[in-house]
Each structure stands twice: as C-alpha cells, then as structure tokens.
C-alpha cells in the first residue's frame, strides 16, 4: 500500500484553462485587460522574430530536475494566425499536468507517467489593446480557433 502510494504523483504547472473561459474570448471585442483577468499572467508575450524562453512543462521525474526552460522562435506562434504587424503580440498560456501511476508486473513493478498540456495562444494588437484571434489546443484534441482564417 505504502509502495503504491509512493508511486502515485501529480504535479501541475501554470493556471487551469477552462473551456468556458476560452469561449468567452471574442476576437475584436475582448481587451487585453479582460484576457489577463481571465487567465492571469501569461507564460510569455512575444513579438514576431523574437526568441523567447519558455518553461519546460514536463517537470515530472528527476531526469529533468536540472533544466526547466528552452528557447523558441516566436514565429512558430505567429504561424497560427493571419499575417501580423509590429504591434501584434502573442500571449501564451499553458496548463500542464504531470502524473505517474504504478504498474505491477509478475516479477517487478513499474511506474508510468504522462504530461498532459493544454495550450492557449492569443493574438493581441498592442496598439488598440484588443484581442484579434486565439488558438486553443486541449491535450489530445484538435486546435480551436477564435476566428476562421
């Protein structure tokens, strides 16, 4: 029992992204202030051609205890949206749940684990302070866009 309990684990990173809140984002109406009220501080705010540093969502396991971030070109995020100008920024939110569970075999026992990440990218025009579009990808599901490209 103790062994089983010791193998169960769950770690979360970021703030939960609730579907109803995502649906409440209205491109062309929702403001940057509304967005921050709904989801809190983003993991990153990036302009096109910038290089951003993101926290690694998969933190379960001692193998990754010594490195928690990686760099990424922001144009990967802008690929989701229609061409944007220098006033546009992508606000990136994520919520990761890493968990492990025991698996018993005949001669030994094992531990399996998985990291499930929900991701939300929001295109904001900083000049007007208005949300222009968003893309939401819940783990294992297709991406949902705010407006059809």
């Amino acid at each position, binding site marked *: 029992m103790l062994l089983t309990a010791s193998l169960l684990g769950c770690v979360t990173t970021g703030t939960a992204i609730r579907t109803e809140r995502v649906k409440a984002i209205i491109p062309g109406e929702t403001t940057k202030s509304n967005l921050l009220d709904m989801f809190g501080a983003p993991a990153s705010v990036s302009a096109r051609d910038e290089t951003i540093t993101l926290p690694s969502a998969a933190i*379960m396991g001692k193998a990754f205890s010594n490195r*928690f971030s990686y*760099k990424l070109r922001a144009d990967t995020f802008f690929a989701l949206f229609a061409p944007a100008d220098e006033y546009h920024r992508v606000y990136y939110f994520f919520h990761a749940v890493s968990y492990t569970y025991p698996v018993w075999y005949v001669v030994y*026992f094992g*531990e399996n*684990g998985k*990291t499930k990440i929900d991701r939300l990218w929001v295109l904001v025009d900083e000049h007007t302070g208005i949300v222009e579009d968003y893309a939401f*990808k819940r783990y294992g599901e297709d*991406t949902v866009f705010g407006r059809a490209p």
Partner: protein
Amino acid sequence: MQSRRKNPIVLIAALWALTVWLDGCGCVIMGRGLVIDEPFTEKKVQMIRHNETSKKDILDWLGPPAAVARAGTVMKVPHWSKVESASTEVQADDFFKRFSTTREQAQKPLVYYYETAQLNWTEYYGYVYNAAGPFYIPPLADRTLTVMKLWILLDETSGKVIDHQLEKTKEGKQPRQTAKKPPANAAGGELP
C-alpha cells in the same frame, strides 16, 4: 567425537543464519516510462495527404510547430535529451536538404518541424538485511529516450503539404524509421 556431535548444531545454526541472511537479500527492479511531451501521434501523421492537406489542417491537428524553417534563416529548435530540455540553433537549409527532390514542387517552400519525446528508464535496486541492519546497494539505472521528429514541407503559395518525413530515434541509436511513405491515395510524389 565431541566435535562431530557439535557439527550438526553448527551446521544448522549456519544454515539458519544463511537462510535469514538470504531471506533478507533482495532485488527490486523498477521500470519507468514517461511521456514528456506529445504534440502529435503517429495516427495524426498518417492523416497527412500530399497536395491535399492544408497548412490549416496541420495547425488544427498538431498546433504550432516547434520550429518554422524559411530559406536562409537560422532557427532555435527545442529538443530533448536524457537529462534536459534545451534548444539549439539550426540552419533552415538543413531542413530543406531533407526534401531535395520534392522542394522544387513548392513555389515558396516552408518547413514545419514538430518533436515529441518519451523517456523510459529502469532502475535496479538491491538490498541486504542482516544482523547489522539493512543496507542498500546503490541503484543502477538504464535510460532510453525515444524521440519522434516530424518535418512537413509546405508551399506557402498554395498552402498545401508537399511532402513530409517522420523519424523515430532512440538516443544513442541510429534512426529506426527514416521516412514515412505517403499513403496510397496521396497525390504527392515519393520521398527521397
């Protein structure tokens, strides 16, 4: 004669001690498999049809890529190793070289790159319990990192997928699968 009489007792005592000692010895083998990040699955990749699947479909199914390669640019490409996540600078042309025979089909070629990783490790724990109390043998661990890499060649002008390649590697080993054959009904050309 006296010593012979003592021998069975000594022998029994020795056997008892050995049994206790052996009972107290053991080994625990523990396996771990962690999916670190899974932005795509092989099932999703099988849905890609050359000259049919659009950039929009790719973004719908897989989300934003880990890297976007445009000719002549340098990219930051995130990657996984056994001990860390990190990123390295890669010349975009290195990605285009993968599509040397099909690149010409795209008026404005573009490569989307995706990566997914799974870490498996097994730990062997040994322990001994004797009269002096328990002590443990330091665990031995064996780790393997399985990484799936996906390159998708797109034509920005038409917005269609021209070609794609899927590669599955285990760290320290040669690629097991170097190219994903296009599906039977794909209109696109064969991979190099």
